């Protein structure tokens, strides 16, 4: 745990020393947050302690991990049953939650569209509901629909829209009131590769051009890897890992695959373990996690041990491997205690 001046503790950074997370203006900060659906029910979220800076945050986790419950809690729809938290500096579960929602945009996973209304009508409606005057909401609906690429079709009922267009209407309604923070729940659901790329480009534009914080919940790890600069992995209502993507990548880059001319004997293998953690060993191939060790030390070790090193390959794990390891509670999850 890293104690912070504002009382928020940061856990689970992959490498906080290399990539410290700034906490001056946290997008979200929780301390021991617990959420229950009813007083008698088991907690759906338990002991969440987390602080995230403004950026694009990827929220990963299997079904039932608590992602939706976390979004509900962030939106103020479920008051915390324990602990405390703030979103954009506003404490959760207070009278300010309704006002806070005027600063948040939410794009749900499912089709929350009014089928008999046009994209223009409903985006203007959501704008008004967020506090825009009727005329301003109508003007803004035109602008935001143009921004998401629906300028031509905005007067057609959404019942005739393709999946990609429907996703963009949902994004437009989340952006219509220019929120400080948007929650995107599976924004690329049902999209073909091209549509997926366009949607992720829009997400990047939203953050880069509008300076809007983004929380992106997705099970498509490639999406998260492409756009997110911070990552939170949830499972069974608990944070399994969290930190910056850059820190994660650096941590992952410290894995190497070593191939020796001859298999190592027992003494050499024991000595190799002194360099780092041997994750896998088979047929003269060793998958070694170096941790904080210097990669150049491998060559010195090989020379000292008389082992003939024929190949050193840096291993870049895919994010799904990281996710699986975090969920199954091994090395990456253990770094929560950093």
């Amino acid at each position, binding site marked *: 745990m890293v104690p912070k001046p504002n009382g928020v503790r940061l856990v689970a950074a992959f490498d906080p020393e290399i990539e410290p997370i700034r906490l001056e203006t946290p997008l979200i900060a929780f301390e021991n947050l617990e959420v229950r659906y009813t007083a008698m029910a088991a907690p759906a979220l338990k002991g969440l302690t987390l602080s995230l800076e403004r950026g694009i945050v990827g929220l990963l986790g299997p079904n039932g991990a608590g992602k939706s419950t976390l979004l509900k809690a962030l939106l103020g729809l479920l008051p915390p049953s324990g602990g405390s938290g703030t979103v954009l500096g506003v404490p959760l579960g207070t009278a300010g939650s309704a006002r806070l929602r005027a600063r948040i945009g939410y794009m749900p996973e499912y089709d929350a569209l009014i089928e008999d209304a046009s994209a223009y009508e409903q985006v203007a409606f959501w704008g008004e509901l967020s506090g825009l005057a009727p005329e301003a909401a109508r003007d803004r609906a035109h602008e935001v629909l143009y921004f998401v690429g629906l300028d*031509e079709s905005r007067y057609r009922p959404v019942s005739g829209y393709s999946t990609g267009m429907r996703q963009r209407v949902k994004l437009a309604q989340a952006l219509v*009131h220019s929120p400080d923070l948007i929650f995107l729940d599976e924004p690329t659901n049902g999209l073909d590769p091209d549509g997926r790329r366009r949607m992720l480009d829009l997400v990047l534009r939203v953050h880069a051009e509008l300076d809007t914080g983004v929380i992106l919940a997705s099970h498509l790890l490639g999406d998260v890897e492409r756009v997110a600069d911070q990552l939170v992995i949830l499972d069974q209502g608990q944070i399994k890992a969290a930190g910056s993507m850059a820190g994660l990548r650096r941590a992952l880059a410290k894995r190497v695959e070593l191939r020796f001319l001859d298999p190592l004997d027992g003494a050499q293998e024991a000595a190799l373990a002194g360099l780092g953690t041997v994750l896998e060993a088979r047929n003269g191939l060793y998958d070694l996690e170096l941790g904080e060790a210097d990669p150049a030390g491998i060559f010195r070790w090989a020379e000292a041990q008389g082992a003939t090193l024929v190949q050193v390959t840096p291993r870049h794990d895919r994010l799904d491997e990281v996710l699986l390891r975090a969920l199954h509670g091994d090395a990456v999850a253990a770094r929560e205690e950093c």
Partner: protein
Amino acid sequence: MPIYAPTLPPPPDLHQGQPPALVLMRFDLARLLRQKIGRFFGFAFLLMLLWKVGRIYVDHLLQTNQTFRPVQDFARSVLTQGADFQADLLNPAGYLLWFLVALVGGGLVARDTLYRVRPLMYAHPVVPRDYLLAKLGFASALPFAILLPFALLPWLMSLMLAGTGGPVWVTTPLRLLPAMALSSVLMGALAVGASSLAGTPRAGIGWVLGLVLGTGTLASMVHGLTGNASVQACNPIVLAEAWPQLFMGVERPLVPWLPAILGTAFHLGLWTYVAARRTRPSETVI
């Protein structure tokens, strides 16, 4: 290939908008106007209104034109301007109005449930009170708006023909408007409560009609068996008809004052409670 804007212009000022409940009601009205049922009901209600106004004019002719002297006695017995006549101004719309309330009100909450729009509403600065107020307000304003010309136009026409010194009660609207308001709120609360029980608009319509006709039939059966008119206070159709009678001072109203008050309070409380429970944010699935 979509064409994207180079960027999004600066945001407009928030906090200039209308109250969320009013925005929701306006959107429900826009939804209703998009539906084609408005044309049929508009025509039907207009026809009824013309019939009412026409009756008054014919009555006037019968009273003033000597040519119609032979039918005057008959007209006097049929077209009176007393309490019964005034209370009856709202009556012809009764069943048709219940049907319209079922068609429109039955889908008010159920449509949001079907399209899963409610969680998205609660993700905006909307609290459950706003949502409930909007739905109850719209469901009640609809029958009220339809009844309003039935109360006012025949009264205005009567005043124009008979003058203030004639048999027409100048204070009729003061008696009819509260009665209309009570009947409309009763209809609206029942429709919203029933709609909140349904997952689709069609099921919502079924719930409203089922509840109205079911309680009505049951109350009528018990009334027939026991002879006790007070049990009709459970019957929403009778209650909606009884309020104009009570306010106009009809000699033998369908339900007396106390049972009418208790029955209306029961329906309002029950269906508002049901709707509030069924539309809580914790019930939303996101």
